[in-house]
């Protein structure tokens, strides 16, 4: 499915929007998770379901243990979100084209209103970053006042995932257009990157060598892209540091 030259490409920047995450300074404080939930109308699912692997986090912070006490170490916190793959495994398997690649923005879209809930995409996502609306989770009044009007409120039976805050992308583009200019790097950013107290997350145009993401990527050479051996061409680069 993936041609060799494509795999080679995955070492270069393929996409349009991309992210750089510095695990060395990520403190795992969960600010990004909260920010994401607030920005994207993500529902909370309560104790029972969240304990059964049904939490709806679009971004989760992974950490593992190395060694035994007293030489035990916590591995660098690893924020895991949709990698917005250039050649995503979730896309071809959706029978309804609800998970499509946006040619305009080079993102993996999740079209909620087209989703019929076969959950094939979630199975096929090697990063396991898609979350499914198992129920119509209640958000009693007046919590719904906080809903972000720019983001659809999902209902049961629909798959959802990180969108790289596409609503912010569109807003920025719209503003830029109305002012007759191009979108400037750093003019806007995703909710997670905006909140991160350590500025461990940086978002921007990976196809623009001058953007901050590209510069950072060059600055720390040793970036890692997760599971790129699968040829998914992920657009999120991780720095382990240390």
């Amino acid at each position, binding site marked *: 499915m993936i041609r060799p030259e494509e795999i080679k490409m995955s070492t270069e920047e393929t996409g349009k929007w991309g992210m750089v995450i510095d695990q060395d300074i990520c403190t795992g404080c969960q600010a990004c998770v909260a920010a994401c939930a607030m920005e994207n109308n993500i529902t909370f699912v309560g104790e029972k379901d969240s304990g059964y692997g049904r939490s709806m986090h679009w971004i989760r912070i992974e950490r593992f243990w190395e060694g035994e006490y007293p030489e035990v170490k916590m591995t660098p916190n690893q924020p895991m979100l949709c990698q917005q793959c250039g050649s995503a495994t979730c896309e071809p398997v959706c029978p309804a084209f609800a998970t499509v690649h946006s040619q*305009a*923005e080079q993102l993996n879209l999740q*079209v909620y209103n087209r989703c019929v809930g076969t959950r094939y995409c979630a199975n096929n996502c090697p990063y396991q970053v898609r979350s499914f609306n198992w129920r119509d989770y209640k958000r009693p009044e007046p919590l719904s006042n906080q809903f972000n009007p720019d983001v659809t409120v999902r209902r049961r039976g629909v798959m959802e995932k990180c969108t790289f805050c596409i609503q912010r992308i569109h807003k920025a583009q719209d503003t830029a257009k109305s002012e007759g200019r191009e979108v400037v790097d750093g003019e806007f950013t995703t909710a997670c990157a905006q909140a991160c107290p350590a500025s461990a997350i940086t978002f921007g145009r990976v196809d623009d060598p001058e953007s901050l993401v590209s510069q950072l990527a060059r600055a720390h050479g040793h970036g890692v892209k997760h599971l790129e051996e699968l040829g998914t061409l992920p657009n999120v680069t991780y720095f382990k540091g240390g």
Partner: protein
Amino acid sequence: MIKRLFDWLKQPLGLIAVGIALLTLFSLAAYGINYTQQAPAQPVQFPHTTHVGFGIQCLYCHPGAAKGPAAGIPTEAKCWGCHNQIAKTETSLLLAPLKQSVESRTPLEWVPVAQVPDFVQFNHRAHIAAGQNCENCHGDMSKLTVAENPQVFNMGFCLACHKKVAGENHELLVKLTDCGTCHY
């Protein structure tokens, strides 16, 4: 016994019964569809035709359209700005609700007719900027009293226009037919 049923249905009375049943079903369906397509009741039987007739621009009352996603409904203050200078306001039955609401400081509850589902992210500004006129989607208001939708805003309606606008421009076509342009 099935056979007996068939036999009964075969004779005239049975046929009539079948006919009636079918008719009822059909009319019910027709009523249902018709009901959902009517313009809903508004607090004020607002005569668009009159206002447009006076030469008031759409954007005067719906300025949001040029500035952002929502065109918006004018504030009572805006209505009152003119109407409190019009003698008719005091007398007219039509305007009673407005008067009442301004005096009691309780907002009027309008029912939007040009509505897209909440999974569609529609932005007026872009469309106005692209040179679209209000009537392209909302019909000719100068002929309407209470606002009605000329057509249901379904995806087909949007895409037809998007494709027409894009024409041969491939880049534009990609942008205008990208799912992520409206759905997120």
